[in-house]
């Protein structure tokens, strides 16, 4: 994992620095005077060679210091602390949507192969996988918020709601800790549409993978044996087939986290969600290297951790897999 992070930091740092543009101009704007530009550049160490800048960066990073954002002029760690929880809450919901809808849909589709449910599920997942997140978000917002008024509009809370004192930054947890039922309910309702928007792509991918893995397993000899022993259909599917079919599905679940991160940018834009995706894009457009580095490193840590957990889960699911 350390090696991965080192690779990520080197790559991002140097890619960010070969961009032929000046972050200071982006931060100070068109009207900035030469002396302001010079002193700003010096204050952020941007007047030193790139190699030296990198070493200084890594040295500080090891002490937990992500540097100061060129755009917001605050410590990047503070910015990340502010925006990461919103994305974690959104991503978590989306993932939950993907798992709760995708896996059952895949299983049912495999069991009822070539029947109407299977066709509908396959069409659904084709649409889900090919529909642009941005468009889907506007469609859901237009239908369930604007037309039907079943669900609230953009943002994490109702406009009149007062957020609970931040402890974790996760509104559901903070409002539960503060015992504020109204805010909890508001936060939960606000999660539905962006969670669906972000989760549907992964739902489709997971459903398709579960379906094909299940189909492969369902025709194996041991399933026929299980059925021949007279086991109930549900028990055969859930205990014998699903466990074996889960291994490829798990891989996709891990990879789909990457999709969630990239989808988060667009979902957060449509739903005015104050998250890391928006922060990453705005930072990238303003060539805010420290912020881009910070986001990339945090994303890499989360991504590798999740995939590590999934690797460990393989061993739990499949006794043949052993890690020495």
């Amino acid at each position: 994992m350390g090696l991965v992070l080192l690779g990520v930091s080197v790559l991002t740092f140097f890619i960010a620095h070969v961009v032929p543009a000046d972050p200071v101009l982006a931060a100070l704007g068109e009207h900035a005077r030469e002396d302001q530009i010079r002193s700003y550049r010096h204050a952020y160490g941007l007047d030193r060679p790139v190699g030296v800048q990198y070493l200084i960066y890594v040295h500080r990073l090891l002490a937990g210091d992500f540097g100061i954002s060129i755009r917001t002029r605050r410590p990047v760690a503070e910015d990340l602390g502010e925006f990461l929880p919103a994305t974690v809450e959104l991503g978590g919901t989306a993932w939950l949507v993907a798992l709760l809808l995708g896996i059952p849909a895949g299983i049912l589709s495999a069991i009822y192969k070539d029947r109407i449910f299977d066709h509908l599920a396959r069409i659904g997942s084709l649409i889900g996988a090919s529909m642009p997140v941005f468009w889907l978000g506007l469609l859901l917002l237009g239908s369930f918020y604007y037309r039907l008024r079943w669900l609230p509009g953009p943002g994490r809370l109702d406009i009149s709601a007062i957020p609970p004192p931040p402890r974790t930054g996760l509104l559901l947890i903070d409002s539960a800790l503060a015992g504020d039922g109204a805010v909890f309910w508001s936060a939960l309702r606000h999660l539905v549409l962006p969670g669906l928007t972000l989760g549907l792509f992964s739902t489709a991918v997971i459903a398709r993978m579960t379906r094909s893995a299940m189909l492969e397993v369902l025709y194996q000899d041991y399933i026929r044996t299980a059925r021949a022993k007279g086991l109930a259909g549900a028990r055969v599917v859930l205990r014998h087939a699903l466990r074996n079919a889960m291994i490829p599905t798990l891989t996709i679940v891990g990879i789909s986290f990457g999709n969630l991160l990239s989808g988060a940018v667009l979902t957060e834009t449509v739903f005015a969600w104050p998250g890391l995706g928006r922060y990453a894009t705005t930072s990238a457009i303003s060539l805010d290297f420290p912020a881009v580095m910070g986001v990339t490193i945090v994303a890499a840590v989360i991504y590798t951790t999740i995939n590590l957990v999934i690797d460990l889960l393989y061993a739990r699911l499949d006794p043949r897999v052993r890690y020495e």
Partner: protein
Amino acid sequence: MRIRIAAVVMLVGVLLAPQAPSRAATASDTLVYVNDISDMISLDPAVAYEFSGVLVAQNLYDTLVAFEGEDLTTLKPRLAQSWRIRDGGDVWQIVFQLRPGVKFSTGRPVTAKAVAFSFDRVIALNKSPAFLFKDIGGMKEGDTIAVGSDTVVVSLPKTSSPQAFLSVLTFTVGAIVDPDEAMAHQSGSDRGEAWLRNHSAGTGPYMLDRWDPESRAVLVANPNYWGPKPRLSRVIIQHVPESSTQKFMLESGDADIAADLTPEQVLDLASKPGVMSQDGKLLQLVYVGMNVKQPPLDNVKVREAVRWSIDYDGIIRSLLRGGARKVQTIVPEGLFGFNSSAPFQQDISKAKALLAEAGVGGGFTVEMLVPTGPAPGGPKWADIAAKIQSDLAKAGIKVEIKETVQAQLLGVYRAQKGQMVMILWGPDFPDPDGNATPFSDYAAHSIAWRNQYNDTAAATLAKQAALEPDLTKRRTLYKQLTDKVLHEGPYIVLYQPTKRFGLRQNVQGFVWNPMAYAEFRTVSK
């Protein structure tokens, strides 16, 4: 099976059902203003220089003098009840008499010392807006002196224009901050900068209740406000980056004012119940700069030919949907000294004749740098560029469009390396000098310099006009300058955009100041 089909049909039916008749509305004492506020980095008036930060800070703080509503030509008293400019020998002295009995939101009285503290603080912190005091005003720390508790004297060098400085003072940089409150929260030697980033200590009609970055800023009425109480006691500036989402919120009644709608979306509002649109003036100019050291653009006839090739009316009509004014001189409408002369409209035979006279009758190829994203007024920069490309092609000029992120484009432009660059300019302060000097004085290292336009006569006119105290003479000087640059200069001024808002029909009293902010105290619903 039948049940499933019925369910699907019902779902689709519900989705396509006509709009529910009853709509929510925002609370009656609250204004909800939806806007993209991702540029907000600080609400400290000595630091804020971004659109959304200035919008908020203008409502939290007062300045000594102000322009009210859309009028940027008549200075009105604010915290200063009167002022006069006197000749102090080798300096100009501006003497301000403070309005008596004004208190900060903290309850402390406004004194002359607070004014000196606030002005010195801007210079000492030296953040983005500081150049307005240091370069335009020529001020140093200590140039603002408190005489007694209610008189302030600001000394400016004779090279600075007192009129231009007074218009600088209408902007947030001239806001008066409570010194005791700021210093009580000082960390290091920051004079309270870190604290004032997301707190307020001013005399404005509102105080800052909270600011959640990338989410919203909440303003509540200041109980100590010296003027008439604001009509609405709470203003929520809600961050909504996507314009379609803004429109949903406005039509649903969850927002009272939407600030970033596209021209098409504004047109669409006309057919919707309960909403309306309103235009706001802006002082920005969208223009193309031509580098006069890049042949054949060095030939004044070629530049004139380019200006005659463009279909300005078509750009405003079809791309901006009417959301702009045809302005072709370098001082925008709304400022003193505006010159309404707009002689150019597409005339290809005239353009071709001029090109032939210049010896490039066979046409030429030129590269045009264009920013990414939307231009002021709504359309994409790239779409305007494509229109210009097709217009110029008719005259035999081949334009190669190069779309570039703005930060990168500015790097090239500032290094004098652009051939043609399409970009915008908004004055830093509401005085014609905010445009005249950058556009015509090569030595100012601004726009004229970037286009290598070095015309001593133009630069001299700009300087004379800036310092001229007699308004009639000043107007004549600006007329001479703008006429000269219109034909000889390196610019194609394309249009002056209008900002278009979507409003709930019950919203009244919303006035957009062309310096790109609104005073919410006048809004009611």
